[in-house]
């Protein structure tokens, strides 16, 4: 059992190495790092603050230490806002960029014969595709998250609390996974770089834009299935729509389910694809 686990982990490590060396170049990663850094930095800087007036006249002080501490406590709340705004900007940009990455990574490989060379190694297709999807999702997620946290603490070094941190992290990850898995499905279905890029970017770009900017252009059920992050933001804002925590959990579960279905379909098609 132990040896089997060891062998599997070594195999996965090799697959990961193969994926990194064949699909990712250093300038590409740095380019994404730059774009995400700018987006998250801008969203952290643009969070508006209401100044607090304090002082005292001959009669009595106004806004004493308690009020100031309450004001400072508000910065913890702001951190949650910064985190969600950073993810909003980044997710909007990634809705366009992810289809381009997958078109370049997967569709191009299927189109120009690189995949044939890779599959001539003893590589299992299911695992290879799963590694591909996981790596894109995790890499982009870590880039967004680390960059956001850096700017949060750079601009507002006070306080540490973020409300609903776990839900924010989970919902943004699932939203990202949803975009990656559906575009991967599109890539193995079309096997064409141009089609994957155009269809994926226009679909995800427009739907993410509509979901983020309007409340009633897209039916709520679709918002729930497509973007648990937006559902959580609506829940946290409290005034846009009357929803509760169950809706957020349902949205998360629904999105995970659909992502897995897309991944499964992509794997089935990929296993049968002539490369």
């Amino acid at each position: 059992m132990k040896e089997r686990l060891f062998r599997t982990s070594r195999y996965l490590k090799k697959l990961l190495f193969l994926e990194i060396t064949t699909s990712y170049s250093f300038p590409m990663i740095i380019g994404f790092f730059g774009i995400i850094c700018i987006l998250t930095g801008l969203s952290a800087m643009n969070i508006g603050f209401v100044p607090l007036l304090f002082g005292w006249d001959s009669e009595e002080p106004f806004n004493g230490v308690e009020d100031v501490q309450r004001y400072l406590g508000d910065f913890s709340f702001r951190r949650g806002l910064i985190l969600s705004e950073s993810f909003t900007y980044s997710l909007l940009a990634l809705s366009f960029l992810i289809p381009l990455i997958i078109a370049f990574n997967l569709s191009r490989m299927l189109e120009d014969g690189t995949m044939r060379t890779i599959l001539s190694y003893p590589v299992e297709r299911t695992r290879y595709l799963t590694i591909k999807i996981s790596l894109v999702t995790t890499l982009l997620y870590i880039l967004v998250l680390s960059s956001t946290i850096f700017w949060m603490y750079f601009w507002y070094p006070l306080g540490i609390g973020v409300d609903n941190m776990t839900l924010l992290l989970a919902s943004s990850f699932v939203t990202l996974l949803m975009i990656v898995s559906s575009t991967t499905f599109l890539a193995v279905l079309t096997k064409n770089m141009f089609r994957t890029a155009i269809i994926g970017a226009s679909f995800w770009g427009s739907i993410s834009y509509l979901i983020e900017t309007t409340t009633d252009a897209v039916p709520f059920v679709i918002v729930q299935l497509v973007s648990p992050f937006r559902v959580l933001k609506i829940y946290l804002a409290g005034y846009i729509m009357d929803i509760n925590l169950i809706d957020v959990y349902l949205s998360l579960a629904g999105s995970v389910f659909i992502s897995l279905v897309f991944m499964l379909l992509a794997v089935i098609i990929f296993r049968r694809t002539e490369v």
Partner: protein
Amino acid sequence: MKIGNILLVVMTLGLVLIVLGMNPYSSGIYLDERLGSGETTGMMYAFSGDAYYTLEVNDPNKSISFYVLDIRDTLSFIEHHNISSTNPVFSLRNVSKDEGLIHLDIPGVYSFVVMNPTNTSVGYYLLIDRLYPQAGLFTFGVVLFAFGGGGMCLLKVAPRTRNWSS
């Protein structure tokens, strides 16, 4: 790691800082009021970078004091009402008209405090504007970008130079 890759990282960081340094985020501060004898008023605000202040008392024969405090000093000042026990980031004592630059290089919450130490009431206005591009971010960004970009250009040119010399 190759030198070219390190230079690319430096250049990208420089570009990021240049863009962020040019972002005109949030507005400045404007106070226009009358302070009675011994009265104090202050405004707390998340701030960083260079700011340009304009302070003017309505009656040129009267004067006020103006201080910029960091968060610790602000809390201490609010609690004890004693400015001499604090260490202001910037201070102007008994002025009737002044303008200039305040450097707040460390991002954070600052308070801008105006005190009337005189025995009569004083009308004044205080205007604090942010300056763009933000000198700290922008200058550092330009330096990094120039270093990275220049280094990469040199790397491109270097092999040719070697060929010439050989």
